């Protein structure tokens, strides 16, 4: 039989997370700090609207771009929270999670050989989506000494005449890094100078603990060259509803909608009705969850400091990214040993790019009680390692 698998696909690296997931699932009664989704349930009034939409028999397709009212509410929400004016429903496309928006956004703008600048460590799908879209990923390694922010220098260094898109993944998974206004202003110059498009993945925008989140689309001349991606998963604890959206210049959104209409048709209808409720009456829930995450973040940072585990202070998402370089092990080795010795699961930094070597992603989407137990074990583990050295 001839080779059934396309070369592009068989050459694609399996996600580093997947490999680790297999090891962890073998382990009975492990405590995990490895989850990239909220521990809160979707607030009940939002779930209730989802249920109600099913009861009313709203089980049909919506228009390809999504419910008109929802697109309208998204524009309102973005204006209210981030100060960017998207004028109408044509500026928005509702997608199946932010992930779909990343995929079809790249497919809509890339010609074969176009280069996409991807800062790493970052979420696992930018690189494969770029390749699948015929683009060439160009990795920028973010540095701990810059608190894993993207600097103008780092960006400038990798730009070639083929560079077309910059992916901007902040607040960042896995590092928890954010980009403040001044950081964005300095990379804006480089973006304008080289006429780049920006795909700004702001799925964690509501979880920013140092002042309000600033979107690059709100900077002068940036809205017209930015595909802004966001969604309901993190802000409203709605991961399983699979609902995200992209906002951008109408001519890009129009082309993305074309791809979306052929391969997806429309995002799940009952999720869209639930999302309407989230946007209309969910601000309070978001504020409460954010405060809870922030308490845990401060607690974790304090504990790391006490144990003497080196970690820059992250101000976004629900991750901390401590350095384990002092122990002379790879991230993989450390994570596997920690799991075997103390039954605590964390994710090796390398799952998010090779420059994550020497770091771990620890999620604080867990109750304080859970974090305490896990931290005790991590402390024991570290003390044992230090005692041995």
């Amino acid at each position, binding site marked *: 039989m001839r080779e059934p698998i396309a070369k592009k696909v068989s050459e694609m690296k399996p*996600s580093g*997370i997947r490999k680790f997931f297999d090891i962890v*699932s073998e382990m009975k009664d492990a405590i*995990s700090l*490895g989850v990239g*989704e909220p*521990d809160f*349930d979707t607030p009940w009034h939002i779930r209730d609207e989802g249920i109600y939409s099913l009861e009313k028999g709203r089980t049909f397709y919506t228009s390809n771009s999504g419910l008109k009212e929802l697109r309208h509410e998204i524009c309102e929400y973005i204006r209210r929270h981030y100060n960017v004016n998207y004028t109408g429903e044509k500026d928005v496309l509702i997608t199946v999670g932010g992930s779909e928006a990343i995929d079809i956004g790249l497919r809509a703008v890339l010609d074969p050989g176009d280069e996409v600048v991807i800062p790493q460590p970052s979420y696992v799908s930018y690189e494969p989506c770029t390749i699948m879209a015929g683009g060439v990923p160009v990795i920028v390694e973010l540095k701990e000494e810059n608190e894993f922010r993207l600097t103008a220098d780092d960006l400038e260094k990798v730009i070639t005449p083929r560079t077309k898109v910059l992916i901007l993944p902040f607040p960042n998974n896995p590092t928890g890094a954010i980009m403040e206004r001044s950081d964005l202003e300095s990379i804006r110059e480089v973006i304008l100078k080289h006429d780049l498009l920006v795909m700004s993945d702001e799925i964690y925008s509501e979880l920013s603990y140092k002042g309000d989140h600033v979107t690059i689309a709100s900077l002068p001349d940036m809205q017209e060259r930015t595909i802004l991606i966001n969604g309901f998963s993190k802000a409203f604890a709605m991961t399983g509803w699979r609902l995200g959206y992209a906002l951008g210049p109408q001519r890009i959104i129009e082309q993305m909608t074309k791809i979306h209409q052929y391969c997806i048709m429309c995002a799940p209808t009952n999720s869209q009705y639930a999302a309407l409720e989230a946007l209309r009456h969910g601000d309070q829930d978001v504020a409460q969850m954010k405060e809870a995450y922030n308490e845990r973040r*401060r*607690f974790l940072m304090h504990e790391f400091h006490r144990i003497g585990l080196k970690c820059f202070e992250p101000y976004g998402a629900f991750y901390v990214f401590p350095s384990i370089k002092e122990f002379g092990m790879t991230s993989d080795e450390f994570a596997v040993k920690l799991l075997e010795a103390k039954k605590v699961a964390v994710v090796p930094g390398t799952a998010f790019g090779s420059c994550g070597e020497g770091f771990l992603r620890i999620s604080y989407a867990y109750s304080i009680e859970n974090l305490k137990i896990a931290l005790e074990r991590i402390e024991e583990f570290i003390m044992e390692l230090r005692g041995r050295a």
Partner: protein
Amino acid sequence: MDEITELRMKILKAIEHEGRVDLKELAIRLGVDETDVANEMADMEKEGIICGYQTLIDWDKTDAQIVTALIEVRVTPQRGQGFDVIAERIYKYAEVDSVYLISGGFDLMVIMEGRTLKEVSTFVTDKLSALDSVLSCATHFILRKYKVNGTILAKRYEDERMLITP
């Protein structure tokens, strides 16, 4: 909100559900000084904002015999004193757990606990209904407590998320 009011609100929100939280830990979580937390709590105790620290117990899971009743009471308010005097006469009984002035068809909501149905009904007929200004009582016995003070008693939820996700 000024800084102190804001800190007070944060403390109150936290201890409302975690009465036993360690003050040092709370200070770390809120990103403030431990002495500030301790001072504010002491002040709020003095001011009667913090009225006590209690434990939420699901007695149904113990061998204890406890019957809880909600009693709606209609009363005649007294000139110049409204409902305060009659409320006081009622809340002074040790059997009475809570007393609220309510709107609607009744005036007071009285919550009480007893060991048996009979104990509760005796209290209602002999003591409560016998009060001069009490016009009528409607007693509702609680059959099952699903959720109390924000805590769900009926069911425990497990973390069903996958162990590792990107």
